[in-house]
């Protein structure tokens, strides 16, 4: 009895910095939430210009790192649809990423000289179709078997790339052109070398010119696409489609008996996931100007998946944070090159022990756990303030729709 009393408060405070922040966020009025989102987005846009110390990466180009991170974020958000929402364990997601990149490569450099912008829609259609083609036979198997089949798919794509002269074999494809530039004005960076931020007019980025030397415009493009994908993700997730995915994940047979054509919805998840992977691949190709099969190994697939798992499967913001962690931290601590993988592995283990649901699990999981904890507390005879508030708060009848509306708003 006394043990629970002493152990309860730290438990609540450890759980959870992120969750608590989120609860405060969802308590804000909608316009405030919207403004906050806009502010965060703007901050993200100017981040590579600010080059803030501590966050900025010494030794590597900060803009380039941010671009890599944003590609990972795109991939994680796309994979989250497949793994998090629909519950389909996909170990070969890198295959779609590769198909997106290679379609761009083939159309712009290898066999034609299309502009990048024209090749992009084709690449997205091709990846989407490849998602359907992979899903059509394989989505009939479940669980572990699907993981094995998708693992095979990723490897097949890579091996095909290595062995096909038509696709450049191991040499890869170059040079892949950049998106069209529209140079309007120069934006100066900040210089922190003296300890105080100074505007440095000798170090500028052209808005908006895609070149080999400055990755920042690529980052801006990626960020814009991330925002669009997140908006689309939210709309689809909050619809019949999102519910069908989750129902399929929870109990495929029951879903089917409630009128959900589960196969069709799983295929849709695969296609949409592939589509987003294709966007990321196309961006990667144009920024690198050069692609070869080395960039599409199984390890990358695992990294993608760990981004989703680390962040919290089923929550788009979790996927975003997971991707940032997986892509940014190793770059930030490049100095410890030798130890990177070891530290990363340890971090994953710690996460698995202390936060198995991921850094930012779906809101509902958090809410449910809180409720569980309260019930537990009540059972041992305590009255946590939260539970009283919950019981005396808005009646669940009208709380339900408003919460639905605002929480996903």
């Amino acid at each position, binding site marked *: 009895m006394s043990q629970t009393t002493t152990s309860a408060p730290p438990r609540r405070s450890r759980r959870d910095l992120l969750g608590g922040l989120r609860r405060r966020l969802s308590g804000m009025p909608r316009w405030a939430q919207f403004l906050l989102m806009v502010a965060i987005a703007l901050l993200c846009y100017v981040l590579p210009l600010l080059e803030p110390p501590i966050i900025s990466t010494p030794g590597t180009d900060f803009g380039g790192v941010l671009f890599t991170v944003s590609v990972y974020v795109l991939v994680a958000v796309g994979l989250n649809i497949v793994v998090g929402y629909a519950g389909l364990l996909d170990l070969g997601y890198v295959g779609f990423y590769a198909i997106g990149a290679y379609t761009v490569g083939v159309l712009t450099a290898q066999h034609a000289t299309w502009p990048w912008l024209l090749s992009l829609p084709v690449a997205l259609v091709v990846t989407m179709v490849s998602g359907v083609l992979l899903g059509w036979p394989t989505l009939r198997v479940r669980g572990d078997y699907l993981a094995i089949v998708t693992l095979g798919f990723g490897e097949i794509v890579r091996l095909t790339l290595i062995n096909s002269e038509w696709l450049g074999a191991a040499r890869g494809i170059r040079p892949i052109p950049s998106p069209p530039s529209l140079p309007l004005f120069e934006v100066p960076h900040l210089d922190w070398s003296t300890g105080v931020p100074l505007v440095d007019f000798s170090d500028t980025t052209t808005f908006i010119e895609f070149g080999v030397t400055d990755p920042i415009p690529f980052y801006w493009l990626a960020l814009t696409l991330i925002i669009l994908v997140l908006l689309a993700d939210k709309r689809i997730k909050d619809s019949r489609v999102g519910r069908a995915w989750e129902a399929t994940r929870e109990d495929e047979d029951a879903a*089917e008996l409630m009128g959900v054509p589960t196969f069709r919805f799983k295929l849709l998840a695969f296609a949409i996931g592939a589509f987003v992977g294709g966007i990321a691949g196309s961006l990667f190709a144009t920024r690198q100007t050069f692609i070869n099969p080395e960039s599409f190994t199984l390890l990358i697939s695992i990294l993608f998946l760990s981004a989703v798992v680390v962040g919290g499967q089923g929550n788009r913001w979790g996927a975003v944070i997971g991707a940032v962690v997986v892509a940014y931290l190793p770059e930030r601590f490049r100095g410890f090159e030798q130890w990177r993988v070891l530290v990363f592995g340890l971090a994953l283990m710690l996460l698995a022990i202390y936060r198995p649901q991921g850094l930012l699990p779906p809101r509902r999981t958090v809410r449910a756990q809180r409720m569980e904890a309260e019930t537990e507390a009540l059972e041992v005879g305590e009255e946590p303030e939260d539970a009283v508030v919950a019981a005396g708060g808005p009646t669940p009848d009208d709380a339900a729709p408003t919460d*639905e509306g605002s929480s996903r708003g």
Partner: protein
Amino acid sequence: MAETVQQPTPVTTGDTLLSLDDVTLKFGGVTALNGVSFHIDRGEILGLIGPNGAGKTTAFNVVTGIYRPTSGGVTFDGEQITGLKRYRIAKRGIARTFQNIRLFRAMTALENVMVGADARHTTGPISALLGLPRHRREEAAGRELALELLDFVGVGGRADELAGNLSYGDQRRLEIARAMATQPKLLCLDEPAAGFNPSEKQALMELIRKIRDRGLTVLLIEHDMRLVMGVVDRVVVLEFGTKIADASPTEVQNDPAVIAAYLGVAEDEVVTDE
């Protein structure tokens, strides 16, 4: 309230809604159902009873398309539904609950029911993406129906809780709401009162009558004899995959074959069973 949301199904008792015609189902050498035929009239509450392993749930599974009969067929609302995909059967108007509760545990109660309501909806990802008017209409209608049904079964106060966190009884009731949200003509309840105490069972029987009053036909599997007898219009008794009786509750209670085969106890203990 109910009438505004549920489609107004006129209770035209008399005509056959569902019929099993000489259904046989074999798993290898085991015959789970052996030439079973029975029918349900529109607006009826039919009890399906029998000892454990008699084939009651198997019959459910044949009706809802989980199993395809080895021979024989199922006719629903005038059309053959044998061999149709499960979700198509659901859309035709057959909904069910499960003996062992099978909710979407990580979804809220409201969402569970909305999944059921979605069976009547047609919007896809594109209209959701663009927020087309039809999509908004369907979302609003689905939510309204779901909230109404949660109230109807008595889980109205828990719409926003995870299904997996609900109490056992609420989970059973939520399953009924989810099935009803598909707006079925026939509702199949597989031991809905399992694990209930007597007062809960009484409330459930009341609920089943109310469901029938909404225009639904109910096929009810139940072990509790008193429960079945109190609410059903007619009883079909299965034993070892064969139908051994098909009559009114009183007739079945006095049927020596049923007493011998199914009840295996003296007649006076039947009524006050438990």
